[in-house]
């Protein structure tokens, strides 16, 4: 069952011709397979993540696009092993990091992995940083704890890091506390902390949502630059179609706990193969185009305790037929490195805008 749900892996050798912006053919760094996460709530069991599979290759940027409640953040938490349990619980699937299943790893081994080889950046930097420690000490601690560096050494590395994320007057500011920094600067500090040990995988959960547009641009630029320099793979979790278009290599669109479409970024924006993706793209007001009525996806995202049967999107889908109400669409391979969980992916794809 969960196997049919998996989007096709970017077929390694089957087709030699690489897609224009297809993923690199190497073995995936992170391979999430049929992940399931449930939450026990007062209203019943919420299937927050319902058979999610995706791969991230070394150095690649995968954007996980979804609205609130789509399960995009919960997936990341499960991958990082920082899910609140209870009420959350991983009920199935595998999370392979370099081929090793993280879900079966002992907790202390997982902890050593976190920070050193995979790290996370959160939306709210103020609550993610320790308010009673100077940022210099917090950064230095990454080196003393994970690398066994001396205090003096770690301190110097911390200042270096702050320089690297372009915090002005790093040496002096290392003595400041998180609340003394502006939102954009705090986000930089959190990014500094995440890249301190040069992890291979960085998961950024809405890293710029709380920031102003001009500051958001600065932070996204910084992320892109660091990613280039360090060769870090990035999983960018966001709801912002603009941000995705700017930085992603590949996109996984999530809806109601499932991945409904995966595609390279250009292909997805040009010809979406899922009506939900299509609706999202059409509903965004654009600066460079002004028309009358915006296209609006009707209805609203379902409650995770009451996901509609069949295709979860069918009550809102302009293309829904009887089969959508009864049969959960498997993940259809659309093209090289593309998949769509829609019975009518072909029609959607061919429906030119």
């Amino acid at each position, binding site marked *: 069952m969960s196997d049919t749900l998996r989007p096709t892996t970017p077929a390694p050798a089957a087709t030699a011709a690489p897609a224009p912006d297809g993923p690199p053919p190497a073995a995936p760094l992170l391979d999430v397979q049929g992940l399931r996460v449930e*939450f026990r*709530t*007062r*209203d019943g069991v*919420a299937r*927050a993540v319902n058979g999610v599979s995706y791969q991230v290759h070394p150095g690649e940027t995968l954007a996980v696009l979804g609205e*609130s*409640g789509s*399960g995009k*953040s*919960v997936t990341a*938490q499960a991958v*990082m092993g*920082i*899910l*609140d349990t209870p*009420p*959350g619980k991983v009920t199935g699937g595998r999370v392979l990091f370099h081929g090793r299943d993280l879900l079966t790893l002992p907790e202390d081994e997982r*902890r050593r992995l*976190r*920070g050193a080889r*995979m*790290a*996370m*950046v*959160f*939306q*709210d930097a103020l*609550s*993610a*940083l*320790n308010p009673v*420690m100077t940022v210099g000490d*917090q950064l230095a*601690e*990454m080196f003393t*704890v994970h690398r066994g560096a001396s205090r003096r050494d770690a301190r110097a590395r911390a200042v270096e890091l702050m320089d690297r994320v372009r915090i002005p007057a790093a040496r002096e500011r290392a003595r400041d506390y998180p609340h003394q920094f502006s939102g954009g600067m705090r986000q930089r500090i*959190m990014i500094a*902390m*995440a890249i301190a040990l040069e992890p291979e995988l960085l998961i950024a*959960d809405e890293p710029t949502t709380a920031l102003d547009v001009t500051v958001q641009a600065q932070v996204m630029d910084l992320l892109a630059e660091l990613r280039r320099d360090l060769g870090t793979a990035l999983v960018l979790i966001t709801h912002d179609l603009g941000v995705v278009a700017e930085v992603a290599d590949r996109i996984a669109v999530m809806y109601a706990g499932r991945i409904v479409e995966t595609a390279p970024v250009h292909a997805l924006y040009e010809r979406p193969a899922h009506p939900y993706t299509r609706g999202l793209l059409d509903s965004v007001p654009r600066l460079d185009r002004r028309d009358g009525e915006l296209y*609006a996806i*009707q*209805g*609203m*995202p*379902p*409650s*995770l*305790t*009451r996901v*509609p049967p069949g295709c979860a999107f069918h*009550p*809102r889908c302009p293309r829904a037929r009887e089969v959508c109400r009864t049969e959960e669409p498997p993940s259809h391979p659309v093209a090289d490195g593309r998949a769509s969980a829609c019975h009518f992916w072909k029609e959607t794809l061919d429906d030119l805008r």
Partner: protein
Amino acid sequence: MPDTRDPAADPDDARSPYGNPHEAVAPTGGGGALDLAAGEAGTLGAPERPRSLWSDARHQLARDPVFLLSALLIAFLLFIAAWPGALASGDPLSCDLALSQEGSRPGAPFGYDTQGCDVFTRTVYGARASITVGVCATLGTALLGGVLGALAGFFGGWWDALLSRLADVFFGIPVILGGLVLLSVVTSSTVWPVVGFIVLLGWPQVARIARGAVLATAQADYVQAARALGAGRGRTLLRHVAPNAVAPVIVVATIALGTYIALEATLSFLGVGLRPPTVSWGIDISNAAPQIRNAPHMLLWPAGALSLTVLAFILLGDAVRDALDPKLR
């Protein structure tokens, strides 16, 4: 604790759908709360009835074993406080010195105290004083503290400053010392001086909570919205602020009830609370304490009843807090 500072490992920052009402769990409407634009979405969910936050809290309480247990116990206590004769047939004041410190026997399961009074009967009759003091003192502090605190938080300014300082003064009075001084001049043997004393010293605690709750609620967008509609101060306070600020006051008051009962017993033990002939667990414990080696049963029963009563009210307070705490929804 290196992990708490590791951004990648800090579980507090994990925005689980449970912790953040805007994520995942929030669209409770789901299929049920149907949007006309949603068309058939409405057919998916079961029909949903209006559910107020109060009725939600009631439902949760009804399923909470801690609440059910404590409520059962309290119901029983209230019953014997109202009709002690239904359980104990004797008279708590008719004693026979010949039976002094006698142990358990048929008709007197808890034995007799130094005066030769039936411990069982006195323990049953003692509930009335404790419950009366607890309930009246709680109502008094909740009303006085709640109203004063709410007004201070809502109107602010010099009224708030005055009240806060006044509350500080009363906070500064040591309870036991204050009781020994103030109550020692009282000669009445009713419960009212003790109730009055507890209200006098207890209201600042409630007032602080009420003030804080009102201050926080007054900032809420829906209060601003009411103001933008032109709502007057009275309407804003009664319709929007008070109903949303009352929950913490209820919680504090419920938990305080247990401690007030304990306080009454303490004051009675020290001889400044209730006076004979009023029957009180505190007085009985006081009388029994010197004899603890010869006749432990004299101490055991009233002390046990007291502990159980205090525990019942504190558990009730906990359950009420769980049901009303807005952070959990």
